[in-house]
């Protein structure tokens, strides 16, 4: 509408002021009258039968309103496999599994009540690794696996602990290996780590007087939760109200129900009082984690670096309940051959139950895990062939018009652009190996390179409404959750752009299933693409209606009406009018306008269960390439990262600043995975470092300067050409760090994180 477009501008985030001044209201900040505080009793054992539970002492404590155990609530839930009880049913499958729940008049009383519950367990030998779980003598952790309700994604294998086996079959890998000059097979490992949302999990449930269940929660996907709770508690969807206050991070850890069912059950038995559970940081670590993954990768190449065949077998430790593990395994399995043209591909990915805490999505749905494997592996192959890491990639990367390994005809592929632009920024010339600088005293500095891709796969529907109030202020309603990624700013910008109003006149509502329309999930970097399209379409619909009213007033054709800076222009006279003036003139007494917009992918094919083939499996792809400049101390194993150059293909930046921040955040997360983050477990399956003292995220003192490079290859179906971004920058960091370490000091690391101790051990083994 306006010549001076808002699209691309690095506007300040719409929620910046309220967040930095502490005014933003998170779930834990809500002050509901008479709220009861909940606490859970969790299992100390990874695998045990529950012999008996005695809650009588807890119930007799003053201030205790309700104590529940698995005897009081039946039913199973889970997004992919309905395998999870609300509270343990006779057996506990991981240390930290909720066994009983208490509601009391204060948190302190609830905690004391939990300490008074007496549970007698019969310990069983826990299955703590995927190897143990796949052994023929392993117990079946879910004997009812075949009888559970499940989604089509969960390709379970009867009589095993495997809750998904994902496959891709393309060409003939054996033939490809035979035609290769060099074949390498290696195994790479990623341990479990944690999302570390700044806000710990918090949920409040209340049965309101009109029979509505009202839940306030810090979840990423209100509609997933609405439907899951409606099914579990046998309620119609329109009686389940999910309100999402300000969210303090998600990163995939909040897409599906976790502690909500137990709190709803407590609320159901606590009259009309609200019941709140806010987890401590220590509990939050047990609520959900990232998957651990072991990937065996085999690649055959020609002498010139052409990739002939690739085979991957990955095992994913998904923990005691499937949650979205089967989806993580599918979405990462789907991309795990890497962003390359490969004629012969064979992929087998297994999602395996163990007696560890539940694993879920983590910024990239397993992409960082497989990127670690395929990129380290490719760098090693380049080294063996005497090629440089950039050269081998430029030779093989997938490009416009290529068929992917699942048969998709690729469009708007920015992979090569990312590689070229990041190499230019870091002054890395193709065909030249990065130099090693000897800094003395055992310290060496060099560069490392890696890239990654991700298909969103979450091409489901998102709806939005845009309401133009008579005075010209605008409300955007969309249930895609702003978790900190900045989607509300993007939506405000899009609505303002379409309606010709200043962005300050737009308010983006918090998601609430009683108000904001349907959105499948806030996940898979889909907010800008799908939410953005929905908001854009809704704003266009609203403008059409405004234009019709204005045309009536101006006696012109609606197409000739324009707006600029919040004023509607009479095409005849050039006079400018406030929205209110026009709407009031057009309709006696005035009128508001509601525009509707949807976004969903037409013609999606899914993937064939046996071959993984599908010509249209994802609405868009993301591409990222990064170069790490680091120094390694071979005497202590310490690394000092000097700079990270990070290019991401964003299609088109709607908000340049937001895009840069997303890259900074993703790279920072990736750097933690690379260098310091690992959940450690004892031999009983308990987490040893569920606190910030021992679980080492990167601090602002550790994160180096990050040069974000926005590559813009417009997507034909994205709003203004834009597409998703958030997940892609995480994956390349660790393999690029490993490549720089290899270039600087000649050692090849295969397991994360690259702690000083692990690196020093590798230097020792290498005779450094």
């Amino acid at each position, binding site marked *: 509408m306006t010549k001076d477009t808002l699209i691309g501008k690095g506007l300040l985030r719409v929620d910046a002021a309220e967040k930095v001044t502490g005014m933003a209201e998170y779930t834990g900040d809500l002050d509901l009258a008479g709220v009861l505080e909940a606490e859970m009793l969790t299992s100390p054992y990874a695998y045990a039968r529950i012999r008996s539970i005695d809650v009588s002492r807890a119930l007799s404590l003053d201030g205790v309103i309700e104590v529940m155990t698995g005897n009081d609530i039946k039913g199973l839930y889970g997004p992919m496999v309905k395998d999870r009880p609300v509270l343990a049913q006779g057996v506990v499958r991981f240390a930290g599994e909720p066994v009983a729940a208490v509601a009391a008049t204060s948190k302190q009383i609830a*905690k004391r009540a939990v300490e008074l519950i007496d549970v007698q367990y019969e310990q069983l030998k826990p299955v703590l690794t995927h190897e143990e779980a796949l052994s023929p003598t392993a117990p079946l952790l879910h004997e009812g696996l075949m009888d559970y309700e499940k989604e089509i994604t969960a390709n379970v294998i009867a009589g095993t602990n495997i809750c998904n086996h994902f496959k891709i079959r393309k060409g003939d890998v054996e033939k490809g290996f035979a035609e290769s000059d060099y074949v390498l097979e290696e195994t790479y490992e990623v341990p479990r780590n944690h999302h570390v949302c700044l806000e710990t999990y918090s949920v409040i449930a209340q049965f309101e007087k009109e029979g509505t269940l009202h839940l306030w929660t810090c979840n990423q996907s209100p509609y997933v939760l609405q439907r899951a709770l409606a099914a579990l508690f046998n309620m119609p969807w329109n009686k389940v109200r999910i309100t999402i206050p300000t969210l303090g991070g998600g990163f995939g850890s909040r897409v599906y129900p976790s502690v909500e069912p137990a709190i709803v059950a407590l609320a159901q038995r606590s009259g009309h009082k609200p019941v709140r559970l806010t987890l401590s940081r220590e509990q939050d670590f047990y609520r959900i984690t990232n998957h651990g993954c072991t990937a065996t990768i085999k690649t055959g190449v020609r002498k010139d670096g052409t990739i002939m065949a690739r085979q991957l077998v990955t095992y994913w430790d998904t923990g005691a309940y499937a949650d979205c593990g089967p989806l993580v395994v599918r979405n990462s399995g789907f991309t795990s051959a890497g962003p390359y043209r490969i004629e012969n591909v064979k992929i087998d990915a297994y999602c395996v139950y163990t007696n560890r805490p539940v694993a879920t999505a983590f910024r990239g749905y397993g992409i960082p895990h497989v990127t670690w494997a395929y990129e380290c592996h490719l760098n090693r192959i380049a080294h063996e062939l005497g090629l440089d890491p950039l050269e081998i990639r430029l030779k093989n990367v997938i490009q416009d018009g290529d068929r992917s390994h699942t048969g998709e005809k690729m469009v708007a592929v920015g992979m090569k652009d990312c590689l070229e632009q990041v190499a230019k920024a870091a002054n890395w010339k193709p065909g030249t190996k990065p130099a090693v600088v000897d800094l003395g005293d*055992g310290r060496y500095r060099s560069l490392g390179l890696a890239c990654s891709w991700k298909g969103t796969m979450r091409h489901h529907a998102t709806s939005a409404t845009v309401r133009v109030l008579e005075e010209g202020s605008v409300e955007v309603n969309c249930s895609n959750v702003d978790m900190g990624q900045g989607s509300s700013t993007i939506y405000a910008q899009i609505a303002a752009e379409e309606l010709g109003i200043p962005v300050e006149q737009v308010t983006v509502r918090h998601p609430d299933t009683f108000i904001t329309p349907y959105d499948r999930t806030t996940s898979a970097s889909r907010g800008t693409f799908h939410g953005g399209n929905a908001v854009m379409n809704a704003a266009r619909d609203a403008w059409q209606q405004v234009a019709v009213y204005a045309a009536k007033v101006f006696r012109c054709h609606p197409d000739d009406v324009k707006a600029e800076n919040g004023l509607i222009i009479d095409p005849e006279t050039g006079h400018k009018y406030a929205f209110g003036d026009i709407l009031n003139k057009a309709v006696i007494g005035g009128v508001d306008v509601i525009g509707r917009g949807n976004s969903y992918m037409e013609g999606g094919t899914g993937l064939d269960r046996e071959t993984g083939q599908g010509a249209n499996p994802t609405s868009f792809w993301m591409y990222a390439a990064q170069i790490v400049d680091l120094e390694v101390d*071979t005497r202590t194993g310490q690394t000092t990262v000097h700079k990270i150059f990070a290019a991401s293909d964003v299609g088109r930046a709607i908000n340049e600043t937001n895009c840069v921040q997303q890259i900074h955040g993703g790279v920072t997360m990736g750097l933690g995975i690379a260098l310091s983050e690992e959940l450690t477990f004892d031999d009983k399956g308990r987490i040893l470092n569920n606190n*910030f003292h021992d679980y080492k995220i990167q*601090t602002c*003192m550790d994160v180096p300067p990050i040069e974000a490079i926005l590559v813009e290859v417009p997507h034909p179906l994205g709003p203004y050409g834009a597409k998703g971004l958030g997940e892609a920058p995480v994956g390349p960091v660790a393999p690029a760090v490993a490549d720089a370490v290899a270039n600087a000091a000649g050692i090849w690391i295969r397991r994360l994180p690259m702690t*000083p101790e692990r690196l*020093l051990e590798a230097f020792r083994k290498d005779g450094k």
Partner: protein
Amino acid sequence: MPALKPFLYERPSSLEQLTALLADHAGMVPGYLSGGTDLLVAMRTGKDSPELVVDLKGLPNLRGINRCEDGKLWIGALATIHSLEVNKTIRSQITLLFEAAQSLGSWQVRNRGTIGGNLANGAPTANTAAPLLALDAEILTWSPVGKRRIPVASFWLGARKTALHTGEIITGVEIPLKQGSSSAYTKLGPRKAMDIAIASAAVVLSLDRGIIQEVRIAMGGAGPTPLRARSAEAYLTGRPALAENLIQAGKLAASESNPRTSTRATREYRLSVIPVLVERSIRSALKRQEGLVEENGGEDR
């Protein structure tokens, strides 16, 4: 997270009140609160559950950093870690204590945490511990039965055990200031902030025409308490400041260490890095002397 155990909270405003308070609650082991960066964490996780919490921040004369007439520097027990890193005397003359203070925790922790608390907590890797050991400092204490001066070398008795008696508080620390000496503190941890050292090395030395005159080396994380590397010190004393001698000193320091394996690092890793930290600390301290270390071109790896 267990329920927080009930406790009494008292904030005496004089030592007389503290005496009376301890007498009134004889039989209770008081938990002393100054910055709270250790005590409150321990109470929250249930590792410590004192029935009586005594806030020392109301007591007079425990704050500040002053030069004494005898050429020593007195640091009050309630002096915050941040006040150490901005103190001019410490910055210019006790560089290792400055380095230890500025690498402790975060701004927030340094603003709350105190030197008295850092010492009384008894951790072998406490940032201020190894520097004070290398400085030959004295710890001043008070209890209802009297005052004591405890040489730092006899302050730590074992893992998290100090020479403090029940009820005894640290009132301050005294550090001898010596002309001509230089110092350095090197800390190794997985992060550059908010981290406890895996191991650390603190060195104070003086040099005369290239010959090391006096040297004291202290190590954190090398055993259950902060340790002096006495054989390394003896070896270096009277020797020229050559790279080969520094390497040898590092080796000797490691041989005097007896670190443990913990969740943070294995014994083997600590033993590998201690010689490097000691060597690098000596080198930094030497660089701060007028004459720089004479490199003899030795293999550095």
